[in-house]
């Protein structure tokens, strides 16, 4: 077999999302690109998911169906994917807001997802507004046991935090990065301030500088149609897209001296260090190069 284009063992052994089940016509073969390889996949309610390298149909790749998406791996993946316990709560609305191709590396997209400082400027009058631009002190922790980056006590004044908000409010966020190319945020729910809405981004690395961004919503909202909830998130993501696509270099530099973080970037600093510790090379510019 020829050498695969991606030779990073850390990335090869990860689970990667291919498509939302809801957008996969049952019983038909589909193709997509993962780590520069053409991957075929299919799904049906009876047979579940299958995936293969195009041209090697007899050689099945491992698959999982989690959180409404079909996942595969080109290496030897862990037994299961990271856990999102909220997804199974019976009163949540779970849906794929969108799967959108973006000309950016997966780690740059994760960093944008973690960043609150851009809210007032990029998501003006929605997720932030002037003069409420300060990112107040928050906590970042890298859990060795769970092998994930965790940012807590993140707060921001938001004029319109979600499809269900009617007025501005201070909203509290928690961010998890349990996978080099996946992140989950929890934010105060507009419908039930005691609980949190869950928004996750699962990045499918097409190559080192292109992703398909799958956006999972698991929200508490009794009032809005699915399409209204998706529309809100699609508009937000549409605002991020040109910002993401104009970052340079497109791959994320891991050398701490290559870019100058400020205090608000604490979670990004921890994320970069965590990636370095894993020895990841795909989608990044490793330190010392």
């Amino acid at each position, binding site marked *: 077999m020829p050498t695969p284009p991606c030779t990073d063992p850390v990335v090869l052994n990860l689970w990667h999302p291919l498509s*939302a089940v*809801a*957008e996969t016509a049952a019983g038909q073969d589909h193709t997509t690109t993962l780590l520069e390889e053409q991957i075929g996949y299919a799904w049906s309610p009876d047979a579940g998911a299958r995936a293969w390298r195009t041209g090697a149909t007899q050689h099945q790749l491992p698959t999982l169906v989690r959180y409404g998406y079909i996942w595969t791996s080109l290496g030897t993946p862990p037994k299961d994917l990271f856990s999102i316990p909220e997804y199974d709560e019976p009163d949540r609305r779970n849906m*794929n807001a*969108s*799967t*959108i*191709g*973006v*000309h950016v590396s997966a780690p740059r997209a994760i960093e944008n997802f973690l960043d609150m400082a851009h809210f007032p400027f990029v998501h003006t009058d929605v997720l932030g507004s002037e003069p409420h631009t300060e990112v107040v002190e928050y906590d970042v922790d890298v859990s060795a046991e769970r092998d994930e980056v965790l940012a807590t006590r993140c707060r921001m004044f938001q004029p319109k935090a979600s499809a269900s908000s009617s007025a501005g409010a201070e909203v509290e966020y928690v961010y998890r990065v349990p996978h080099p190319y996946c992140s989950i945020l929890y934010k105060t729910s507009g419908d039930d301030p005691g609980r949190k809405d869950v928004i996750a981004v699962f990045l499918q690395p097409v190559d080192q500088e292109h992703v*398909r961004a799958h956006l999972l919503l698991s929200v508490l909202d009794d009032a809005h149609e*699915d*399409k*209204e909830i*998706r*529309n809100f998130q*699609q*508009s*937000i*993501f*549409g*605002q991020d*897209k*040109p910002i993401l*696509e*104009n970052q340079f270099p497109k791959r994320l530099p891991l050398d701490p001296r290559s870019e100058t973080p400020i205090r608000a970037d604490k979670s990004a600093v921890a994320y970069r260090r965590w990636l370095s510790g894993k020895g990841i090379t795909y989608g990044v510019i490793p330190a010392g190069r």
Partner: protein
Amino acid sequence: MITLFDYELSSDCYQARLALAVLGLHYSRVDVEFYPGREHETEWFTELSPLQQLPVLRDEHTTLYDAQAILVYLAARHDATGTWLPRRDPVLVGEVTQWLGLSRALASSAGAARLHESLGHVTDVTAARARAHTLLRTLDEHLWFGEQEGRSWLCAADHPTIADLAVFPDVALSEEGGVSRIDYPAVRRWTDRVKRIDGFVPRSGLFPGGSAAAPWPR
């Protein structure tokens, strides 16, 4: 009462929203989810828009389903100044119509490349980008010579027309389809001028113009 059947991320829908905004018209929006809901293919929407095209505009007893037709109608019906579609000037009417044609050509080239990149629509993206560059080069030359003659807009008038509103969206979003505007400085200056038209509204993926110069009209 005007109703617009609209999808936020569609550049044709954005043309209609721009026209409604600069004309200062009140309207209600009905969201039609192009992706992932494919609501434009539903039976109820096909009854409104037989070619399953977005946007659709309804005004009293009129229903129109073509972005450029909607701009022509809105200007002809609701623009008391008569400047957005200068119907009394045959040359300007011809020019406006010519640029509306260019906006369609942009939709099937720069717009198609954008849909290919973002939603994976199947298209010959190399050919689409090459065509988009041909159109942008034509536009850039036209705007550059216009600037030398003191003309700021697409048509030979001292004010913008619906032609500027029709051509703007797919030009301003071209980078998302991998079509760079770095080689078209006159186009970039013109997009900045469009952003300063009084009543201009941005959309997701486009940001408002800077306050470096006064909005138009001065």
